[in-house]
């Protein structure tokens, strides 16, 4: 065997590795590292736009459906002692609160968030909300059940919807936050009672919101709880589905509004660039782009949106304290786990 065949690739390899090693040693001032749980299909174009407009290179880490969008949060926690990330862009406030509780975030007040309502912001400025999704009921329009639609979340435990409702595993993602919001609004006893009635009514626990959307679109099940972006995407793709906001009448609890949340990481390697990215994400332009791409509802007043994107002004929101609800979520995880595991 010719020794060159072994030596040549080895030398080339060594050169490449040394180059990569040296490159990573040199900190570039014109870059920002962002970890996001927002689907890459929606977040990447925004980050590319920021890169183009600011000249700051964005290095992103995206999450996956397979890990229930918890991969980057776990990575942030694991990296706590030597943070690599500047900005955490989350699809809901829960993860930001988890990070805040662990002391991994730092406060930042962005001028861009001045007119965002205060209940969408952390009182201590560790996280700021922008473009929001809402929890909706997605249903299959081609099934006979579509003639009598539920109006309230509590209708989902009625016998006429037995074995016809799906919900994502409440231990993960926005469903956890939805459950925590129900516990906040109803109190523990009533919330547990409602969950038990859902279980007795044969609710199907799907692996994710995307799975709920898929099962409803395929007609495997009549309806399910999911987020507006999932329902909007399914409709846009031509699936026989529609969605509605539950509990919109006077005296009802309203629907949960879930804002995106952006956080500056404590010990961020590029804090100034991180702040510029946060400002950009909190801008009206970003909200307009997210409204167009995935039907997210702007929190700034007067942001232009496509016609089919609902306005927050037209929705009766669930009245919750986001910080307290996110904290409550941590406490009820055990209850939710037992509920999922119960027969």
């Amino acid at each position: 065997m010719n020794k060159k065949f072994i030596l040549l690739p080895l030398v080339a390899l060594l050169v490449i590795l040394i180059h990569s090693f040296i490159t990573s040693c040199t900190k570039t001032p014109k870059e920002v590292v962002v970890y996001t749980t927002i689907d890459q299909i929606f977040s990447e174009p925004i980050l590319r736009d920021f890169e183009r407009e600011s000249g700051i290179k964005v290095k992103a880490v995206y999450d996956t459906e397979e890990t229930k969008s918890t991969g980057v949060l776990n990575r942030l926690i694991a990296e706590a002692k030597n943070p690599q990330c500047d900005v955490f862009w989350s699809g809901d406030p829960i993860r930001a609160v988890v990070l805040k509780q662990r002391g991994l975030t730092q406060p930042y007040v962005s001028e861009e968030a001045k007119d965002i309502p205060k209940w969408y912001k952390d009182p201590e400025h560790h996280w700021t909300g922008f473009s929001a999704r809402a929890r909706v009921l997605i249903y299959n329009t081609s099934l006979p059940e579509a003639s009598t639609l539920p109006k309230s979340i509590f209708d989902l435990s009625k016998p006429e919807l037995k074995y016809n409702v799906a919900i994502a595993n409440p231990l993960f993602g926005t469903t956890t936050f939805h459950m925590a919001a129900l516990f906040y609004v109803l109190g523990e006893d009533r919330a547990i009672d409602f969950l038990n009635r859902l279980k007795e009514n044969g609710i199907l626990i799907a692996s994710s919101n995307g799975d709920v959307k898929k099962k409803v679109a395929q007609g495997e099940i009549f309806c399910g709880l999911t987020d507006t972006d999932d329902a909007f995407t399914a409709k846009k793709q031509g699936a026989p589905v529609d969605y509605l906001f539950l509990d919109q009448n006077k005296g009802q609890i309203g629907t949960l509004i879930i804002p995106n949340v952006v956080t500056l990481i404590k010990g961020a390697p590029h804090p100034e660039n991180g702040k510029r990215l946060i400002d950009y994400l909190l801008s009206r332009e970003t909200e307009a782009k997210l409204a167009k791409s995935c039907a997210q509802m702007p929190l700034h007043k007067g942001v232009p949106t496509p016609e089919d994107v609902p306005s927050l002004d037209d929705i009766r929101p669930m009245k919750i304290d986001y910080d307290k609800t996110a904290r409550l979520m941590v406490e009820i995880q055990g209850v939710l786990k037992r509920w999922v595991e119960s027969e």
Partner: protein
Amino acid sequence: MKRFIYFLTTLLFLFIAVVPTLFTLFSSVIQLRGWGGIFSMTNLTLLGKSIAMSSVTAFLSTLIGLLLALILERTFSERKNWIKLLLIAPFFFSPYILGVAWSDFFHMLGTGERFIYSPWGVIFVWTMIFAPLSMLVISSQLANIGPNMEESALLCAPYQSVIIKITIPLLRPAILSSFVLVFIMTISEFSVPAFLSVRVFSTEIFTQFSAFHNFSEAVAQGWIIISVAITLLFLERSYLTDAPFISVKTDASKGARPIISRPISTLFHGIAYGSIFWMSVIPVLVLVFQAFKGGLSAMNQAIHVLAPTMINSLFYAAIGALFLVLFGLVFAFMSEEDHLRWVNLVLLVTFSIPSMIFGMSLIYFFNRPFLTPIYSSLVIIIFAYIGRFTFITGRLIANSLKQIPTPIKEAAIMAGAPPWTILFRIIIPLIAPGVFAAFLIAFILNLGELGTTIMVYPPGTSLMPIKVYTIMANAPQSTTSAMTLVVLVVILSSTGALFLMRSILAKYSEERCCG
């Protein structure tokens, strides 16, 4: 010099894979508030369920693998390698994608949905994925069995008796190896049961990790899986002592071919082609149907999205495979030439670590200010590959070494050839097919690795499997399926290119050798 290389390689491997894992495992044990929760009745029940499901999968995969191996090695003369390649196609996909494809298949069929969303559904999907691996392990061993015993037995016994009394007992090591390999790979696999909503021990670890962010408990539960795997490996090793774990023989089988009637032969060929249809064609057809249902737009989008990641992925996979072969080569020499048995144990233990825990270990250990250049560069991805797959390359090369007849080396020593000449002129040329197979398998495994790399990939880096997974959330099903097909085509074409390169190199060497 030899000792120095052994020492350096071992030290590097300890630094890359063993120390980070031990560091994480022991820190988790120290931080754990109590072991009561770990050994709760719920956990033990789930562990029992996992062991039962993995055992059934390992049994079924091995049984199907044995049948296919016997059919391929003993009744096919031509097209055998092509059939093997088609059969192992599911191995190029991630289990999660196949779980989705199979559930969609049953949905399209309009029946069997209750089945697929049950423990039997998980076993079914796992078996479809891992049976080809069993086939590969067993057929490699079968190809190594000389014809003498079978042919002698055929003189006085019918072929079925020869199979039962001679061939299968000779295959015992490969059968057990296949069982152990499939068991270890399934017991820590969580994506299929999580998608099909079946609770097992690995999904429980995932829940502790992802929902409760309780890393200590998750890692402690990981310990239990590692212990189960080690116990099984220990039992298997002590029972088999020196049997090969995985081997790849590239030349044709020399085994005895049965004289079988045409209908039986047709039946066997039918089983082989039917298996290709069930294991490979159906999931691929589902993906093709979903990808092209709305025309070519999904495929165009998939190519557009994945194109920038292809060069990166192929490059990293190739570098990773090169390192894996180098580590595998040294460890193979340590275990086979110098009989350092602890090497095998260390490699086996690292192989049984769940990918997520290994990913966490890499973060905890390498994410330090003075190690940042490693953690934030492509080096960490190479480390992930090394930790995950050195066992595979090590064993493949070790088994090639095992096949070199001792007299050849002895003759070279007697003729006064120095050790380096023996190594480069005799041993390496003789194990070259095994080394190539190790490189190829490592390359394919690297290209598809997700469990660990998803946790450590440097920000801004784009790798093909990661991109597929990060894009698939909220992307139309057609795009996801199209992306999966693009990955399959990339893997198949790069495999083909490697084979082509090998034959060109072989021809070149032959020409040089023969003047």
